[in-house]
Structure formats: structure tokens, C-alpha cells
């Protein structure tokens, strides 16, 4: 038997679910009714949502996407390591390490201050221009390096905020046991900092996953470039839509995962 309060709550919950469903249905029907009424709809449908071209380009795009994933997979760990190194440079307190500190500050300023695509161009075209022998003139290497350099600047700032967020009392407690500065950092501060900023770093991974496509501007035939090829071939934009779908299939679950991590963490802390 439900108490009057439970009964009331249950009815209120049912009513709000019903209202939410009805208003969502209304909004979607309105869009489906209105968009086809726009004057250019027929043309847009033909050049962006062509089922036949979608089916033809999709498998090839998927294969090209493997390259994006590969670039992502080798960049991500290097970004994490280099980002952490820069963060530690910025946290160096000994006077002898001041140059490192200065370097860390300059580094994050420069690489966060320039658009990613510019870094990709400058390094991706610039370094191979030195006339290096194969394989050192590969756009994969230098394009990846451009991504690594840029992203580690952001990741370094995330790590640094994590390091700063570990309360001073933790450092005191560790130091009071006679641990060296390095061990205080490695055993006490860093493990807590890295965990705390994991959701923020997840977001960087999602952004990186998309920005891998920027390498298409300097040569590698990854998914975006492949889509461009098909666009020219069929004189139709549907391959771009197909590429977008492929990206979403990866990034949406990743985003949800990151959100859940964040929510879980906030729940733990409260």
C-alpha cells in the first residue's frame, strides 16, 4: 500500500514523463513538417542526403577512418606524457630549475595561443621543407608532432590545475614524514591530481579525435580528405555527411562516458 505522499509523487512523476514525451514529439513533427517546405529543400536533399552515394562512399570512408584512429592512438599517450612533463616543469620550485619553469610557461602560452591548423601547416610543411631523407619527410610524423605539441599545452594546463587542486595539507603531511619533494609529488600529489582531472582530459581526447582530421590539409588521406575526393568525384556533399556520421559514432559514446565519469566524481566528492 502506498502512503498518500508516495501516491502523489508517483502520479506527479508519470505526469511529467507524459508532458516531456508529448512536447518532444510535437517539436520533432514540427521540424519534419517545416523543413521540407523550405524552397531549397529538394536541392539540399539531393546534394547532402543522397542514399546511393552515402552507401557507396561509406565503406571507403570507414577504411580511411582507420588512419585517423591510428594517428589518434599514437598521439594520445605521447600527449599525456609530454603534457605531464610540461606541467611538472611549471611546478618546479628549485631556483636551479627556473629555466624549466620559464620554458613551461612560454610553451603553454605559445601553443595555446596559435590555432591548431597553423601549427599543423607550419610544422607539417616547414620541417619536411628542410629536405630530410625518407622517412623523415613524412607528413604523418610532422603532422602528428604538430598535434602532440599543441594538445600537450592544453593537457599540461589541465594537469597543473589538478596539481594545484590537491590541498596543501596533503603536501605537509607527506613532507612531515620526511619524504623528498620528488616523492611528495610522485606518490602523493600526482596520483590524486591525475584522477581528479581525468574527466577534463577525456574531453581533450574527444577534441583530439576530431582534430586528427586537420592532418588532411598536409597530405595524409584520412577520412576528411577521402570524403573530399568523393565529393569531387560525385559532385555531391553526401560523403561529408557520411564522414560526420562516422565521427559521431565514435565521439558521442566517448562524450557520454566522459560525462558519466565527471558525474560519478562529483557524487563522490559531495
Amino acid at each position, binding site marked *: 500500500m502506498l502512503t498518500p505522499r508516495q501516491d502523489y509523487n508517483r502520479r506527479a512523476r508519470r505526469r511529467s514523463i507524459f508532458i516531456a514525451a508529448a512536447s518532444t514529439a510535437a517539436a520533432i513533427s514540427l521540424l519534419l513538417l517545416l523543413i521540407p517546405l523550405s524552397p531549397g529543400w529538394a536541392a539540399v536533399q539531393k546534394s547532402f542526403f543522397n542514399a546511393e552515394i552515402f552507401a557507396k562512399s561509406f565503406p571507403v570512408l570507414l577504411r580511411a577512418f582507420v588512419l585517423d584512429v591510428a594517428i589518434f592512438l599514437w598521439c594520445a599517450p605521447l600527449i599525456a606524457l609530454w603534457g605531464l612533463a610540461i606541467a611538472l616543469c611549471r611546478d618546479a620550485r628549485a631556483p636551479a630549475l627556473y629555466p624549466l619553469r620559464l620554458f613551461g610557461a612560454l610553451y603553454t602560452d605559445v601553443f595555446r595561443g596559435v590555432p591548431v591548423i597553423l601549427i599543423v601547416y607550419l610544422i607539417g610543411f616547414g620541417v619536411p621543407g628542410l629536405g630530410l631523407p625518407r622517412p623523415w619527410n613524412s607528413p604523418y610524423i610532422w603532422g602528428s608532432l604538430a598535434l602532440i605539441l599543441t594538445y600537450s599545452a592544453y593537457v599540461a594546463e589541465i594537469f597543473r590545475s589538478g596539481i594545484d587542486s590537491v590541498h596543501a*595539507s*596533503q603536501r*605537509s*603531511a*607527506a*613532507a*612531515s*614524514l*620526511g*619524504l*623528498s619533494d620528488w*616523492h611528495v609529488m610522485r*606518490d*602523493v600529489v600526482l*596520483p*590524486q591530481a591525475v*584522477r581528479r582531472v581525468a574527466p577534463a582530459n577525456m574531453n581533450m581526447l574527444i577534441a583530439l579525435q576530431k582534430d586528427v582530421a586537420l592532418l588532411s590539409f598536409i597530405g595524409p588521406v584520412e577520412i576528411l580528405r577521402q570524403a573530399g575526393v568523393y565529393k569531387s568525384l560525385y559532385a555531391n556533399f553526401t560523403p561529408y555527411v557520411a564522414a560526420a556520421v562516422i565521427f559521431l559514432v565514435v565521439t558521442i559514446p566517448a562524450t557520454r562516458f566522459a560525462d558519466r565519469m565527471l558525474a560519478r566524481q562529483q557524487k563522490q566528492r559531495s
Partner: protein
Amino acid sequence: MNEKLRLKNVHKSFGAQKVCHGIDLTVNEGETICLIGASGSGKSTLLRCINLLEDIDEGMILLDGADISKPGLDPQPVRQRIGIVFQSFNLFPHMTAVENVMLAPRRVHGLSRAELRPRVETLFERFGLADRMQSYPDQLSGGQQQRVAIVRALAMEPEIMLLDEITSALDPELVGEVLDVLRQLRQQGMTMILATHEMKFAREVADKVCFLDKGVILEEGPAEQIFGAPEKNRTRDFLRRVL
């Protein structure tokens, strides 16, 4: 009795705020010293200075006759000899209780977990924590956390223990179990300096009670004297308020 620790004219300020205003204190081996006084009277700061977590501005701190407050001295070896336990426990939340305790001996003395195991297990058992070794700090009650913090400090085999209001953050029913630990330590002859608000406990265990007021030791003496017949008006006022 041997003199273990001696503070001579210790001054400490944070910016314009003077916290310790010329403190002299002698602690003999095996003694329990209780620092009492209102919040902000300088008790915690004094303990942090002894552990070299804060640098003193003026004066001297002698440990076994050697000046440990000399500017430029490496604080690590000193800290290994002086343990400190904080009001807010400050356990490392990402490690189990036993890892918390083993970290410093492993890193500082280069001992392995296996080598440390017997000694650490004995400590956990002695303080009623035998079944809590694998727990994370947030799975422990406040009293258990504070006992783990004490074990963590003891694992470095310190010569002096500093205890900074270690029962102030505990629920009243958990205070007893932590004070029991201190009684045990005292019996074993540990030299201890406590900053405390537990007046009954101070009266019971202290060899010497120091009343701090505005950064100086206004009055010091045996517990019966300070609690029974305080000489200074401010001491009397303070005790009337807290007892």
C-alpha cells in the same frame, strides 16, 4: 632526565601577523607536554615550526642539543625523527591504510613491503586496526583514520611525536579510542607534545602544561598547578571558559 628538545626565543609571523612571540620551552625525554590556549594562540604554528613545516623568523630549536632551525638546513632528516599528526588526519585518500603507513619507510629508508610487513602489522594490531589495513581512508571512521595517521607517523620510528589537536575533528564518542592510543604511547616512553582542547586528558597525562596566549607561554607548570591554582588572570579566565 635528558633534555630532548629545546626552544629558545622562537618568533614566527605570517606577514604582519605575529603568531609566536618569543617562546621558550624545554622538553625532556619521555615527557608529555600539553599546550593549551584559545584558538589562534599559536599552538599549531609552534608544532609546525618544530617539524620544520614552517621556518621560524628568530630564535633556535635544539634537538638533542643540535640546532635544527638553522637556515639552509635540510629538513628531511629532521622530519624523519619528529612525527606529527594533524587535526584533519591528512591521510592519503588514494592509498589503503597499510600503504599510507608503508609509504615513507619504503621511500625514505628503502625498505620493501615484505620487510616492513611484520612491524607494520604489529602497529596496526596494537592500536586495534588489524582488520582495517586494506581499507581506504574514506571507508574508515574518524577515530580509525586518526589512529591510522598516528600509526603512519610511528612507522618512521620518530623520537618525538607532535599531536596537533588530533581529537578536535572527531565525534565525541570517538575521542576516547584516540586518547587511549596516546596513553599507550606515553607508557612506552614516547616524548610527546600535544596541542589540545581536552583539558581532562591534559590534566591526566601531562608532565607539564603550557598555557599559550597571544604567541607567548604565559604560564607553565605541572598539571595540578596550572589547573588547580593558576597564577595568571588570563589563565584563570581561559580555564573558567573551557572547564
